[in-house]
């Protein structure tokens, strides 16, 4: 049992790093797409134990970070209505909109609630027929099937007081946009393990054919990520560019077909604006016309809301792997998780928040020794 022994053995991480050192002959820039992976890398200091020359840059895979400013403004406008209960995932409440955030709406008497699962929003709607219940549905392909499922259920049950402000984003188009950018530095990707659990990894073959960039679908534990990095560096050193799957315990080539089916039933692909990055063609999911009765944007007349993103911080460069959070002059001073200037400082999956939580302690720890 190769993996069993490796995972039991505390020295495996060091062995992988040693092996990486032997295989690395020149510098490589690798990007992890998913914010959950960024969090693990920072938490365990993996970027700091890699051989010199292997640089990790952090991708845009933090749903809270990339939800557009105008979408946040729409949510704030809807949540401010006295007849509405707006329900979302925790961190969305603290993301700065143009003038306010959902937490302020809540403090001023707005009915804004946090859930762990969209099914709780549906339950609340069933139990409170006098409230207009709006689920603020953000997230990548991992989250979209769950959000699709509750809309599908609401339609089947004929619920008339439930709707969703849906702003889903898709990973492969964002990777294409990063790779096509003139300033791109990324030479290999750690693919998002839970996105691929749902979608499989077929779609990524097209990116490889187009850009000749290796992609290794990775998991979320420290050894998953170290192994994925080793697989990527091995490909790069050998001049190969293929898709490989490190996260075999969850990811299959075709993904979860039932989850994909409900997504396709409820949502359709659309162009999407990403906070800090801008518009990316075919990079979002919106409700299909057959589900327009559940479209909060239409119901509450917020379709025309637009917002200009202020040059508040360097999050655009951070989300594209061009800069590190610590390159920002506001990092840890004028911008903190308690008072975020930009969205990546809000979510624990945001690169800035991950650096703030773990890297500052590490720096302080070193200073004390």
């Amino acid at each position, binding site marked *: 049992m190769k993996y069993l022994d490796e995972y039991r053995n505390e020295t495996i991480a060091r062995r992988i790093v040693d092996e990486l050192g032997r295989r690395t002959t020149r510098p490589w820039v690798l990007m992890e797409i998913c914010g959950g992976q960024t969090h693990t890398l920072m938490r365990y200091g993996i970027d700091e134990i890699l051989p010199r020359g292997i640089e990790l840059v952090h991708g845009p895979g933090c749903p809270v970070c990339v939800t557009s400013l105008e979408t946040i403004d729409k949510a704030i406008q809807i949540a401010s209505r006295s007849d509405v209960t707006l329900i979302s995932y*925790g961190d969305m409440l603290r993301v700065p909109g143009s003038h306010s955030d959902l937490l302020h709406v809540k403090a001023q008497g707005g009915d804004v609630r946090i859930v*762990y*699962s969209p099914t709780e929003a549906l339950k609340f709607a069933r139990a409170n027929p006098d409230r207009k219940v709006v689920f603020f549905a953000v997230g990548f392909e991992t989250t979209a099937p769950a959000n699709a499922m509750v809309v599908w259920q609401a339609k089947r049950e004929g619920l008339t007081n439930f709707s969703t402000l849906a702003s889903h984003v898709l990973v492969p188009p964002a990777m294409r946009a990063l790779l096509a950018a003139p300033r791109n530095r990324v030479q290999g990707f750690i693919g998002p393990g839970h996105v691929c659990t749902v979608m499989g990894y077929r779609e990524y073959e097209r990116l490889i054919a187009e850009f000749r960039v290796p992609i290794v679908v990775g998991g979320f534990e420290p050894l998953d990520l170290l192994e994925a990095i080793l697989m990527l560096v091995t490909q790069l050193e050998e001049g190969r560019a293929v898709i490989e799957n490190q996260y075999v315990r969850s990811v299959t080539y075709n993904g979860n077909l039932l989850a994909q089916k409900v997504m396709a039933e409820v949502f359709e692909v659309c162009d999407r604006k990403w906070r800090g990055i801008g518009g990316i063609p075919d990079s979002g999911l919106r409700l299909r016309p057959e589900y327009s009765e559940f479209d909060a944007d239409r119901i509450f007349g917020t379709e025309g809301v637009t917002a200009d993103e202020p040059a508040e911080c360097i999050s655009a460069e951070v989300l594209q792997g061009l800069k590190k959070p610590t390159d920002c002059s506001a990092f840890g001073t004028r911008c903190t998780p308690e008072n975020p200037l930009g969205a990546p400082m809000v979510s624990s999956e945001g690169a800035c928040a991950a650096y703030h939580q773990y890297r500052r302690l590490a720096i302080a720890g070193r200073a004390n020794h």
Partner: protein
Amino acid sequence: MNLPKSVARNMCLAIPGKIVSSEMHSGIRVGRVQFGGIERDTCLDFVPEASIGDYVIVHVGFAISCVDREEAERSYEALEAMGLLKGELESEFENS
């Protein structure tokens, strides 16, 4: 309906848990899934192959894949061996 902040916060995160029971609710198969010592209601409609005793990977209350028992335990044992499991569960389910 509110869960601890840290549970709601990690949207990308999906973690393995063990199905301890399952029943139909409004046409949906809902299971109680155990994560360490904590249980959560979880929709099992995307993993019809999963049955009681199986491990599933759960994201925002939905099981998105069924994992091999050996694979799931392998992860836990590996984390435990590295002294990481306790911290991992605390960060996900603190105060619950």
